[in-house]
């Protein structure tokens, strides 16, 4: 479905992203996970051609055999919305405040299909029903500010899948929402993906959310893929030291009987913070924050591939195959 090879993004002469190899099989749900500033969102936007003009993108992103990066703005516009849907992080800012809901949900339908008039309205109502919004018929005439955050994100999802795309890119779709609403939106995304056989590229900083939604995951650090594989392999048997550090920083859930112990536990943090653009060390990008760094880490680690496509780039891997 999606084959990324040697994808690089340069801004102001700095290489922000370099993804050597990453695949998303048809119908699969791939998670991109990493800290703020790791480059996961930028990778997602680069794939959809939604980066600002000052970002220089090179490499290949094969989508169903065609290289997306070779397309110009007008050609890309014919794919976006039609074959690739995109859901953004902040629904309140991603909906046009001056345009009615119906108009925004129907935008992709008007642009990419032959439907007209009444048929468009019917389709919009059907979409709003699918994303489980109440009273869709009157909702089409309302404006974004009249909806709650969760409802707005459902509208964004309806607008993204309006022209039946084969791939949905969701960039931290629940980060701006309440925890209870989060779970509902995640369930909705999973069921839509299963009903429609729609592949999903899911960006999140939360490994728990990734495990819930995705079947494969890529851990991104400094614009590189540190580790990738099935969700179970990467989360239960991490090899890259960054993945383990990220997992250790996650406190997990309190056990019913011992809440006090949960609240009393020491949280692990990753020392330091993600370096600014252009300040990453040579060789392994994580080595200045890594507890296991050695002299070898000064040169770039070559990827090691194990069973089921479990691939990592680390000189001193933890765990075992």
């Amino acid at each position, binding site marked *: 479905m999606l084959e990324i090879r040697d994808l690089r993004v340069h801004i102001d002469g700095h290489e922000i992203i370099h993804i050597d190899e990453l695949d998303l099989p048809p119908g699969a749900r791939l998670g991109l996970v990493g800290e703020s500033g790791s480059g996961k969102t930028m990778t997602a936007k680069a794939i*959809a051609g*939604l980066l600002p*003009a*000052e970002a220089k993108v090179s490499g290949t992103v094969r989508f169903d055999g065609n290289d997306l990066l070779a397309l110009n*703005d*007008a050609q890309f*516009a*014919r*794919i*976006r*919305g*039609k074959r690739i*849907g*995109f859901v*953004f992080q*902040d629904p309140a*800012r*991603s*909906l*046009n*405040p*001056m*345009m009615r809901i119906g108009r925004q949900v129907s*935008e*992709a339908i008007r*642009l*990419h299909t032959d439907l007209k008039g009444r048929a468009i309205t019917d389709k919009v109502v059907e979409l709003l029903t699918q994303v489980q919004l109440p009273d869709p018929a009157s909702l089409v005439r309302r*404006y974004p*500010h*009249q909806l709650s955050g969760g409802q707005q994100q459902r509208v*964004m999802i309806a*607008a*993204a899948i*309006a*022209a039946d795309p084969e791939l949905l890119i969701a960039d931290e779709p629940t980060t701006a929402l309440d925890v209870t609403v989060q779970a509902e939106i995640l369930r909705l995304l999973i069921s839509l993906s299963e009903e429609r056989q729609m592949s999903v590229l899911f960006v999140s900083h939360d490994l728990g959310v990734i495990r819930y939604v995705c079947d494969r995951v890529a851990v991104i650090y400094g614009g590189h893929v540190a580790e990738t594989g099935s969700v179970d392999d990467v989360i239960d048997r991490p090899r890259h030291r960054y993945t383990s550090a990220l997992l250790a920083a996650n406190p997990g859930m309190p056990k019913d009987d011992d809440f006090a112990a949960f609240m009393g536990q020491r949280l692990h943090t990753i020392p330091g913070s993600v370096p600014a653009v252009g300040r990453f060390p040579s060789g392994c990008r994580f080595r200045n924050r890594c507890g296991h760094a050695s002299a070898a880490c000064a040169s770039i680690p070559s990827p090691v591939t194990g069973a089921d496509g479990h691939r990592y780039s680390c000189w001193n891997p933890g765990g075992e195959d």
Partner: protein
Amino acid sequence: MIRHTLRSLATLLFAALVGSIVVFVLVNMLGGDIVTVLLGKEAGPGDVQFMRDELGIDRPLVVQYLDWLRGVATGDLGTSYGMGYDIFDEIVRRLEPTLMITLGGLLVSIPLALLLGTYSATNAKKVRGGVIDVFSQVGVAIPAFWAGLLLVLVFAVRLGWLPTGGYVPLSEDPIETLRSIILPVMALSLGVTAVFTRYVRTAMIDVMNEDFMRAAMARGRTRRGAALFHGVRNASIPLVTVAALQFGQLIAGAVVVENVFVLPGIGRLIVTATLGREVVVVQSLALVIMLFILVLNFLVDIAYGFLDPRIRDKAESQ
């Protein structure tokens, strides 16, 4: 929407009332004795007193104010001391050239600025956009009277295409009317277009960076398509405000331009009436200009509600 409109209307009426008081008080505090102007310094005290009674300027200010307001409402403001014309009729007669050049200025400068500003915003990092920025910088700096004189020199004196000045009323010869306002409108729009271009540019650049613009592109809009279908309307809110403010600039500019081009409009009347100590004329003209601006602000208020559903909802819920 109706409540929003009614509230704006109430604001308009209240502001007009307060404004009329301010205008009246300020003009009457200007000083200068009209009787001395009319009769000369050698006039006897009896003549002076007779004149003062005749003009009614010894009455309390409140009475004079109410008398003036009634005059405005009934269309009877008396006659000019010095020139003998009927004040109300004269003001109405002089509205036409002023309205023609100010509205003409709006009609030219707003679409032009929208075009130039959007072009400059979508080409912000390129030379093409930069050329427009330079033009708007220069345009802001050129004074209207100088631009007017230059235009007269080139198009009227040197080339002889257009009249050097004067005005032909619409009722006499519409074609000549248009010919007589071309140069004044050009002189008047130059600065306003330049300033407005810069506002359009800033507003469009801001909007182009909004998340919903990227979301529109994600649904299949091209960059230009998103700018057109989603950007312009969102950029219009700040622009409507600025456009209304620019109208005040246009009226101020009209005073200058009417004098350069010898147009018999409000602007020229203000100058002659002020020099002639025609208190009633000056305060009536000030009132007319104030009403212009208040009505325009009222229209802008209404426009906000039409443009932005959030403002409409807020007004309804209050």
